[in-house]
C-alpha cells in the first residue's frame, strides 16, 4: 500500500539506543579480550607441561597459546627450585617480600597520613616551602640516589653486610618507607574534602590537634587509609631494581620475589628454560595481590579520584 504518505523517517529513540548499546557491547568485549590475552597466556603457560621428544618438559616460550598437556608440574618444580645453591629459594623470596611489604605498609601509611593531615589541615610557617621541597625532590630520577642509599645503609651495617645478610631486608624496609612520606599528595587530596568546620568545631570543643587527628579525622578516613596501605603493601612486590641494589646480587636467599623472578630469565644466571617456572611464579605472586585489589577496589577507586581531582 505504497499510496500512504512515506513515513517521515526518524529513528525511534528506542531503536537508536539498542543499536548503540549493541555496538558498545561488541567493542567492549573485543577490548577486554585484548586486555586479558597476555595475562591469560601467562596463566596458561604456568600450567603447560608439554614434553619434547626426549620426554622432558619444555621450559621455554613456545608458539602454542594453549597448553597441550596442562599440569601442575611447573608449580611443583617452583617449590623445589634452586638458584645459586639455595634450596626452596622461591618460597624464601615470597617470605621475604611478605615480611618487607607488611612492615612497609604499616610504616609508610603512618608517615603518609601524618604528613597529609599536617599539610591539609594545619597552617604553619614552612607549609608552602615543604610542599615545594617535596615536589622538587620528586623530579630527580631515582637511580643515582640508589647507590648513595646503598652506601648509607651499608655504613650502618644494614646492607651489603657479609656477616648477617638478613639485615639488608631491614635496610630495604627503611629505604622504601623513608621515601614514602613525600608521596602525601593523594592523601592530602582526600583530607581536603573533609570540611574544615569539623576541625574548627573540635577546636572550639577544646581538642588538641592530636586529639582532632585521632578522634575526628582518622575515623572518617577509612577509604584513604586502605588506599594508602594497599599502595604501600603492593610496592615491594613490584620493584625489582631498587631491591637488587640494596640486597645485593649475590645474596640470593634474601631477594624479594620480583628480583628473583626477573633474575630467573634476564640475569647472568638466567636461563630461557625457566620460562614456565617464571610463569608459575608470576601466577603465585599475581593471585594474592589481584585478590587484594579486587576486594579493596572500591577504596582504590575512591583514592584515585580523590587524588586526581585535587592533584
Amino acid at each position: 500500500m505504497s499510496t500512504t504518505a512515506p513515513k517521515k523517517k526518524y529513528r525511534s529513540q528506542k531503536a537508536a539506543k539498542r543499536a548503540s548499546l549493541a555496538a558498545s557491547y561488541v567493542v567492549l568485549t573485543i577490548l577486554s579480550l585484548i586486555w586479558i590475552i597476555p595475562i591469560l597466556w601467562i596463566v596458561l603457560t604456568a600450567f603447560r607441561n608439554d614434553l619434547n621428544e626426549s620426554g622432558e618438559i619444555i621450559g621455554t616460550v613456545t608458539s602454542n597459546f594453549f597448553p597441550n598437556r596442562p599440569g601442575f608440574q611447573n608449580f611443583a618444580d617452583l617449590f623445589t627450585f634452586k638458584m645459586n645453591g639455595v634450596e626452596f629459594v622461591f618460597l624464601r623470596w615470597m617470605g621475604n617480600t611478605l615480611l618487607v611489604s607488611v612492615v612497609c605498609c604499616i610504616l609508610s601509611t603512618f608517615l603518609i597520613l601524618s604528613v597529609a593531615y599536617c599539610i591539609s589541615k594545619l597552617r604553619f610557617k614552612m607549609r608552602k616551602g615543604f610542599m615545594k621541597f617535596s615536589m622538587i625532590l620528586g623530579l630527580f630520577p631515582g637511580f643515582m640516589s640508589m647507590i648513595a642509599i646503598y652506601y648509607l645503609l651499608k655504613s650502618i651495617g644494614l646492607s651489603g653486610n657479609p656477616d648477617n645478610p638478613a639485615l639488608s631486608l631491614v635496610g630495604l624496609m627503611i629505604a622504601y618507607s623513608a621515601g614514602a612520606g613525600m608521596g602525601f599528595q593523594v592523601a592530602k587530596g582526600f583530607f581536603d574534602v573533609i570540611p574544615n568546620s569539623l576541625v574548627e568545631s573540635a577546636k572550639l570543643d577544646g581538642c588538641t590537634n592530636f586529639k582532632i587527628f585521632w578522634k575526628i579525622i582518622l575515623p572518617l578516613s577509612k577509604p584513604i587509609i586502605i588506599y594508602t596501605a594497599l599502595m604501600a603493601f603492593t610496592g615491594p612486590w613490584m620493584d625489582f631494581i631498587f631491591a637488587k641494589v640494596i640486597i645485593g646480587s649475590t645474596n640470593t636467599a634474601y631477594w624479594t620475589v620480583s628480583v628473583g623472578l626477573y633474575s630467573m630469565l634476564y640475569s647472568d644466571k638466567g636461563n630461557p628454560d625457566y620460562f614456565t617456572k617464571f610463569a608459575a611464579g608470576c601466577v603465585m605472586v599475581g593471585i594474592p595481590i589481584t585478590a587484594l585489589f579486587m576486594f579493596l577496589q572500591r577504596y582504590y577507586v575512591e583514592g584515585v579520584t580523590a587524588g586526581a581531582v585535587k592533584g
Partner: protein
Amino acid sequence: MAGLTLKHIYKVYENGHKAVNDFNINIEDKEFIVFVGPSGCGKSTTLRMIAGLEEITAGDLFIGDTLVNDMEPKDRDIAMVFQNYALYPHMSVYENMAFGLRNRKVPEEVIKEKVLNAAKILDIEDYLDRKPKAMSGGQRQRVALGRAIVRDPKVFLLDEPLSNLDAKLRAQMRTEITKLHKSLGTTFIYVTHDQVEAMTMGTRIVVMKLGYVQQIDTPMNLYNKPYNKFVAGFIGTPQMNFFNVRLNRVKDKVEVIFANGNVITVPYEVVAKAPDKYLHSGVEVILGVRPDHVQVSEKKTGLCGVVNVVEHLGNECIIYADLEGNVENAEEKAEEGMSKANSITIKTIEGIEVNQGDKIYLALDPHRIHLFDKETEITIIEEVPHASSFMGKVSAGKLSMFGKSVALPAAVKDALDGKGEVMVDIPPYAVVPGKDFALEVHDVEELGDVRLASLINGDRYLYAIVDKKVKKGDTYEFALHLDKVTFHAGDEVALAPIGEEEALIGTFSKADRRENRERVIDFFYNINGVPVLAPRENGYKMNQVEGNKCYKNNYKFVINRKAIKLAEEGIEGDVKEILDYGYISYAKLDVNGQEILVEAPVGLADSKVYISFAGEDVAVHSLDIDMRIC
C-alpha cells in the same frame, strides 16, 4: 555572661584583600546582635575573629573585660553553631553533645544531666543515640544548638544556622532561637544574609557591605532612618522604590520633580534639615519610598501610573505599576538597583479593586520618604544635620548676617576681604552662647544625650546644639566659632574649617636599656628625628602586625590637635603664620615639609617653635593599606 567590645578591628589577608575595615562596636551583656549583609561583606570573618578561628590583623577584641586577641578558641568560653552544623558524623547525638564537656574533664554524670537538660529544651530526647546521617536538617540543627547549650558559654556565636533549612522550618527555628536567647540570657551574635531574620531576631543589627560597617542600630531605626541608600534598599521587603528627582522649595512646600515630569509636593518641615543646596532643583537627589508607604488614592494626585501586575498574598497585595509621563530613555536611566525610572511597587491591604491596565493615582506618605545624595548615597536628612548654610556679606572687616554684623577676627578678615557675598555653612556645634546674634527658637528635639534647637531665620532654620535651659519660643543669643565654619565665595572655598586631628609621617623604633640588670625595651615614634615614647603594648602590636618591617617602614601618626602642646624642646617646626580666630588662635607650622596647625597664643613672636605630645594620644596608621594599627 558577658558583653563584647571590638575596637578598630581590621582583617587583611596576605594578598592584600581587606575583608574587615575599622569595625567598632560595644555589645552589652544579653544582647542579640545580628551581623547582616550580602555575601563577601566580612560578616562571617568578623564572627570567626571573635571565635578565634581567624587571626585579627589589627585592633582589640575584649570578651567581658579581658583582651582575647591571642587567646586560644577553647579558652575564650564561646560556643559556635556552624552553617553546616559541623556534627561529627561518626558519633551519636549524645556523644556529639558530650564531646566538648568530655574534653574539659567534666564528670560523666554532670555531662549526662546537662545533655538531657539541653535535649529537653530542644525536644530531641528520643534522638540521642542516633547518628547525624539518620536525621533531618531541622533535627541536626537542633543538635548543633544543643551542643552549644551544654557548654553554657559566655557568648553564643551562630553562623547562618538556618540557611540550609526549608522556608517553613526556618520560620519555626527563628522563633525557637529567639526563645532560647530569652531563656538562656546569654549574649548572642548571629550572622545571616537574610534581612528578615535580622529584623525579627536582633535587638541590634550591624549592616555591612564590602568589609565596611554601614550602620549599627535597632531594627526599627534601620527601617525608618536608614543612613544610606544601601541600608534602605537592603532592609524591608518588597524592596524600597528609588527615583532620581529634583527638589524645589516654594515657601513652606517643597516640590518633588520626577524625571518623567510628575510633580508632588511635601511640607518643608520634612526636609528642613536637608542642606539648602538640594532645595533649588539644582542638584539631582535619590528619593526612596517603601511600597507600604505608597497608597492608591481616589482623587487626582501629581503621581499617576498604569497597573502592570498585581500579586495577591492573601492579607495584602502588591501592585507593580508604570508611572505615566514620557521619559525618553527610561531603560538606560535605570542604573543598577534603581527601579526603572517609571516603575513603582505598592503594597496595600487586600480588597482594593485593581487589575491590570487600570490607571491609578498614587499618594506618598510625606513623613515616610527618604532622600539620598546622588554621589555619596548618604541620607541628606540626617538627625543631626551636617551643617546649615546662609548668605552673609563681608565689608570693611565686618560680617553681616542674621540682621546683625560682627567684627571679624584677623585670620578670617584676611581670608575674606574683598569677597563680598559669601555662603556660610554653619555646623550645629559651631553655634555657642554669646552676644553676637539672636534668633527665636522654633523647636527643640531631644535626640538621646543631644538637644537640637531649630532657630528661625527668615523662611529657614539654623540648627544648633543647646543646653537644658533653652525652650521652644525663647530668643537664643549666640555667637559663631568661625574656625569651625566653611566660607564659600562663588563656588570655591574661601576659608575651610580646622579639623580636630593632625597627621604626621614618621618612623617607629625601639631601644634597649638596662634597668637593674634587666633588659628593658622601649618603643618610640620618631618624627623628624625626634623620638616620642610610645606605650609598650603598641610596640608589641606593631611587631605582631608588621613583623620586622615595623622598624623600616614609614607610618602616619594621627594626633588630636588638643593634645599637641608648645614646649621648650620637642619636634621643631618653623612658624609660617598665626591665625587669629578671636576666641582661639592657631600657629601654622611647617614640620620638615608637613604643614600642621597648633593652638598658639596670638602674640607668638619667634619663628621656630617646638611641639610635643604624649604617646598615648597617637593613633598609628599604615601607609601601605588604609588601616589603623594601634
